[in-house]
């Protein structure tokens, strides 16, 4: 089962953004990728605010790849906001980050992250991680239905 729902990539580092896009491409993931460069932008997109006002529901992401260390609002804050809003609380969120700090792992899962993936320095391993992610979240996983807009 395939679909063309977007992947929301929340990433401030343009190099990482590029590498992620390449890794997705290598893994034949064709879903459109929307990039938010900081936490505020990510939430604006998800809640249809400011420049993202008026998105149709189809624009809601299939999966959110969330970096933790972000300008303005960091990843854990963004996760908390997603999980506390009726419209977005069921969205799959994969934390994709450099750190393997225990603290970050615990906080991430306790705030309701669906997966925690460390970005390896070795690009080959990175592609492998993305491949597995794409296989699971875009193909195997059945997303919860998108709620009607109130």
């Amino acid at each position, binding site marked *: 089962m395939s679909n063309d729902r977007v992947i929301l990539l929340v990433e401030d580092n343009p190099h990482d953004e590029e590498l992620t896009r390449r890794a997705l491409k290598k893994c034949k993931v064709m879903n459109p990728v929307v990039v938010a460069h900081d936490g505020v932008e990510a939430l604006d997109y998800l809640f249809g605010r400011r420049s993202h006002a008026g998105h149709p529901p189809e624009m809601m992401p299939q999966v959110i790849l969330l970096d933790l260390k972000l300008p303005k609002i960091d990843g854990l804050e963004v996760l908390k906001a997603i999980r506390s809003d009726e419209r977005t609380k069921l969205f799959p969120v994969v934390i994709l980050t450099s750190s393997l700090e225990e603290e970050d792992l615990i906080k991430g899962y306790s705030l309701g992250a669906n997966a925690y993936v460390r970005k390896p*320095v070795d690009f080959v391993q990175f592609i492998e991680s993305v491949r597995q992610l794409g296989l699971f979240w875009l193909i195997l996983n059945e997303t919860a239905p998108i709620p009607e807009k109130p």
Partner: protein
Amino acid sequence: VLSAAQLLTRTFETSILQLPADFNRTASDSAVHRILLSNDTRSRKVAELLFAERVAKNPQVIGLELRGKDGKRLLWVAGPAAAKTAPLRDRHVESTPPKGLLVGPIVADRGTLFYEVRVPITTARGDTIGTLAEFRQVSSGEAAKLVGGLIGSDATLLFGNSAGLWTDLSTVVVGPPEGSKGSSVILYTAPDGSERLGSMAPLNLTPWLVWVDLRMSAILAPARRFLRDMAVAGLLILIVGAVVAWLISREITMPLRDIALAAKDISTGDYTRRVIVSRQDELGVLADSFNSMAHEIEGSQRAMEGRVVARTSELKALELFERFFALSLDMLCISGMDGHFKRVNPAFDVLGYTRDELLSRQFLEFVHPDDQAATIAEAAKLAQGVKTLRFENRYRCKDGSYRWLSWTTSPDSSSTLYSVGRDVTEQRVAAEAIRQTNQFLEGVIENIPHMVFVKDAERLAFVRVNRSGEELLGIPRHALLGKTDSDFFPKHVADSLQAKDRETLKSLVPLDIPEESFQTVKGVRLLHTTKVPILDSTGTPRYLLGISEDLTEQRQGEVARARLATISEDSEDAIIGRTLDGSVTDWNTGARRMFGYTEDEILGQPFTVLFPEQSKKEESYVTKRLLQGERIPHAETVMRRKDGRELDVSITRSLVYDSLGKPLGVSKIARDITHIRAQQNLLAAKNAADAANRELESFSYSVAHDLRAPLRSIDGFSQTLLEDYAEKLDADGQKSLSFIRESAQHMARLIDDMLALSRVSRSDLHRRSVDLSALARAAVSRLQGGDPERNVGVVIQEGLLGEGDPRLLAVAFDNLFGNAWKFTAKRDGARVEFGCTSQDSVQAYFVRDNGAGFDMAFSDKLFGAFQRLHAVAEFDGTGVGLATVKRIVSRHGGRVWAEGRVNHGATFFFTLYEEDPLA
């Protein structure tokens, strides 16, 4: 005679007025008052003594009598003269007190002549409460003789009453003739037939009369001499007449003979003799002339006689007065309203002036300047006819000294002043001396800070109490005096006090009561009382003297001091007192404990021994500030023990004052805060460490995220190049890109290991029992899983247990076994062993391999971070693994060390604690 009587009465009157001065003193004595007010036995005794003294001093006093307001006799003291007049005791007395001094009529009783003098006794408020009466003998025989001598034998001086009793001062005599009363001078015939001329005058202030008479013959003697001379003149005329008659006619002889006979008669004193005039001729004229001559002689003779009588009696009275005047011991003077003495008697000699000096100046000039105003006022009253009674002023003597004189003066209608002055200097001086002595004693008693009281022995009523007593009892003096303890204290208290009083009075020995407590208006007071009996000259106790010292405050002070001493002694803090110049005066147990000196060692020593050099200056500076009145808050400083050890102390210093508010010394309360200081230091270090840790954590976080991102870019884009542009790169280029990727990945490992090491330091240690053998097996199976082709002989001693944090220990095992795994990779028959050995009674675990080993010369570098003994090409690694192991073992309180030889393997030992971790 008339003026003689008046002069005498005036003189007597003045003397009578002088008389009752001391009588009045007796009447105003407080004992006399007390008898009348309370009639207590004690007062009676005092008054009896007083009366007896008076009677003894004045022989003319027959007796003294005190009567109540109702006239009832309260006290009678008889003098020696009273024996003759026993019935006096039963005399009827006037029932009401007189208004003022009253001299009674002269009374004769069994040959004794006496009169009564009475004065009222009045209180300070003017209430009359009784009468004091004195019976005085009129005079003795000597007095009568003296008076007789003064006035001469021809004169008679009698004193008498209007009732008709007369006396010449020695016996009762027949009084003056009837009709003498009222008329000024009378001529009468005495019972012995002699003619006498007399005059009577009342004695003012008394019911007495004075009678003076003179025998006529004494008066007429000079007149007769005069008449004899006149008779000679008459005879001469007669002879002339006879010669004329003889010459003129015989006829006239007969009438002339008649005249001659008549003249002869006249010459013998018969002035009534006249001749019969029967003829109208010259003889008749002669006879007429003779008759008229005889008539005239008779008239002039009679006038002459009257004048002579008057003049003579005047002279006689004057002489009498002069004698009194000269003899008086009192100062007698006559002065005029012009302020000059007219006459002064010899008693004035006491002032040292001549008579002329006294008369030539106004008497005011002699008066002490301070007394002049009063003297002038007194003179003004005299000018209005008011008598002066015992007015006292000071007269300057010629030698400059002053004498006190007491004056009684009465003016007459012609503004002449008759004065009697008495020198009272000695009395004044004596009275002043007594007053000063009394005042001195009064001052002493009043100002004694203890209660002083005196009770009379009979009733134990207060007769004296001083100011301290009033204050202590809280009862004013007027309310205390005359009252007894029963009036102020509950019965059982009063009874107990009075029992002690009586005991003292009975034993005649002072009684000391060291402590007795009393409920007063000021609360319960604790007293130390001494009671002393006061005896009179006969040894009878008359009074009880009490002296009480109030011990209450002193005792409270003692209790408070004892309490403070206990508190001070029990205090954990050192309490130290010192004088202003620095020697130690107080040293409590806390001080002994804290500084190690005993009291004997430190007292009197300079307190500076307690301070090290650096604190001494501060100490003297603080003392200076204290003395300037500053309050010094508690401060922290360093002090020194006897053993030289320095203590951190918190010290409070304050000045100690004496009761007058003068600083005596400095008190210090020092608390040992060395351990608090150590705790503070520890806390500060911990805070610093915590801060450093927090910093390290945020640093680590940043490293974990940010340092890896560029490495990912380097690796990722290198890989992209290798994949997407492989055909455009030659073998060297591709190799270079591979090196870039390797470096990036190595650096990523370095970062990961660094983070692991730092995590080991940061994470908390949770110590519990751990199965070390199991941990070793898990580590080996992880290695085997990651490298399944390797064939390594593993020997693990089973059942090794230890105390530690399982997570940290797992990391340590991963590193130790990882190393063993790695360094045996190039050898056949690789062997890795885990076991336990006992070293110096401590369990040491070890991981041993038979790998590459190391040179013991570099063993000290093994455990340093990033220290490697092998090239990367030979054995991969970051040089952080053993540093991590060492950190973990150290955190457990253990030790790690290694033994090895190049190519002969290595053994890593570790313990989990070297000492008892609680020690």
